[in-house]
């Protein structure tokens, strides 16, 4: 058994552990997953299996640091794909976090004023 399939099996074990849904007891070791087959067709999307498990641990740790309970963080991680995990791992602190209009109300009046000016500018610069 080579390194890659060993890691792959490890990931399956991890995913099985985390999943909400239950599986029938079938042998899955050699089944090529749909997501992997799609990725294999798209060479540019070649995934690094080796890093997937580490990335999940890392993102889970980051979520806990951002105020999530460890159990909840684990469940949230389980619903993300490897590609999403990779993106989150690199950019968790930079990605937009939608907060809502209440935050905007809290922003300094001057910023609101500029915002309005920008809105006006957009309306008048449409041609």
């Amino acid at each position, binding site marked *: 058994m080579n390194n890659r399939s060993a890691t792959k099996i490890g990931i399956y074990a991890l995913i099985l552990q985390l999943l909400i849904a239950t599986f029938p007891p079938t042998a899955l070791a*050699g089944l090529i997953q749909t997501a992997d087959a*799609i990725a294999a067709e798209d060479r540019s999307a070649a995934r690094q299996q080796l890093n997937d498990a580490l990335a999940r641990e890392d993102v889970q740790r980051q979520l806990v640091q951002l105020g999530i309970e460890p159990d909840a963080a684990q469940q949230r991680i389980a619903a993300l794909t490897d590609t999403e995990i990779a993106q989150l791992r690199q950019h968790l602190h930079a*990605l937009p976090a939608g907060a*809502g*209009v209440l935050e905007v109300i809290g922003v300094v009046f001057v910023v609101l004023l500029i915002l309005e000016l920008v809105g006006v500018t957009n309306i008048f610069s*449409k041609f």
Partner: protein
Amino acid sequence: MRAASALLVLALGGCTGTGPVLSPHLPQSSQGIGVELEDTPFLAQTEYQCGPAALATLLQDTGSAATSADLSTEVYLPARQGSLQFELIAATRRHGRLPYVIAPRISVLLEELRTGRPVLVLQNLGLRSHPAWHYAVVIGYLPDSDEIILRSGTTRRKLMAAARFLSTWENAGAWGLLVLRPGELPARPEPGTYLRAVADLESVGQIRAAGQAYAAATARWPANATAWFGLGNSQYRLGELEDAEHSYRQALRANSGYLAAHNNLAMVLAERGCHRTALDTLDQALEHSRPDDPLRRTLLQTRREILQQLSESGGQVDPVCNDTDRQP
């Protein structure tokens, strides 16, 4: 994923000169006919909780019982005082729905509204240099007054000038999310985007929901090998081996060089006790494959495992297998 990357670039880009020229008007195709999805639920957001409220709105619209409070524990990030797009997508999967990110065009968004589907959007209500991210649900538009209708924050029916909406939407990457019931297709689905979304749903363990979505994809695109392959995988994992075999053969009918489908078909055959037919399938596939195809290693591994099973079973051949030994 490509759309997400584009968004990322935009989000990290910050204030870099002037933006693209925005088209302030709704597209020609939408002139004259307004839409308002009045039955869309309204869930007023509490502090910073526009993500949970907007997603709960769409989930409830598809018949889910999920509440804003449920969603808050699934998507809200206390230290960021907000919610990430990826987590909205992931939470949609947790509730057995298919998250589908639409192509970043207003015409696509309006078309979804016309088919009766509200769209969750990310807006930047602040400046490009000082963004204020906000999630809202678009439920309609009024072409006569050139306005967009939203369920937004604590406002049940927020009217926003189309130009202003477009500016806030495009400054947030023109990101729009659909929440689809399994088996439901977007108004104008793009096969690659749709199947990737379903494969992601499958990969987090929502096998039954993914199976329904793949079935819908095979009905819509009968010659799409990936759709059949995904359907086969979900059937396999639900223990429906004969259905899975049929689906893999359909995948191979659409694309005879589909190594992954050969591999999984061989696994189904072996599991049914048809080891020799399984080996034939693998040998044929390997013979016609490109030497540098990375999937060859998996097929060779499967071949070794089946050979081992065969030797353990004493080399007996199930006579039923010959009847099913059809060429794809």
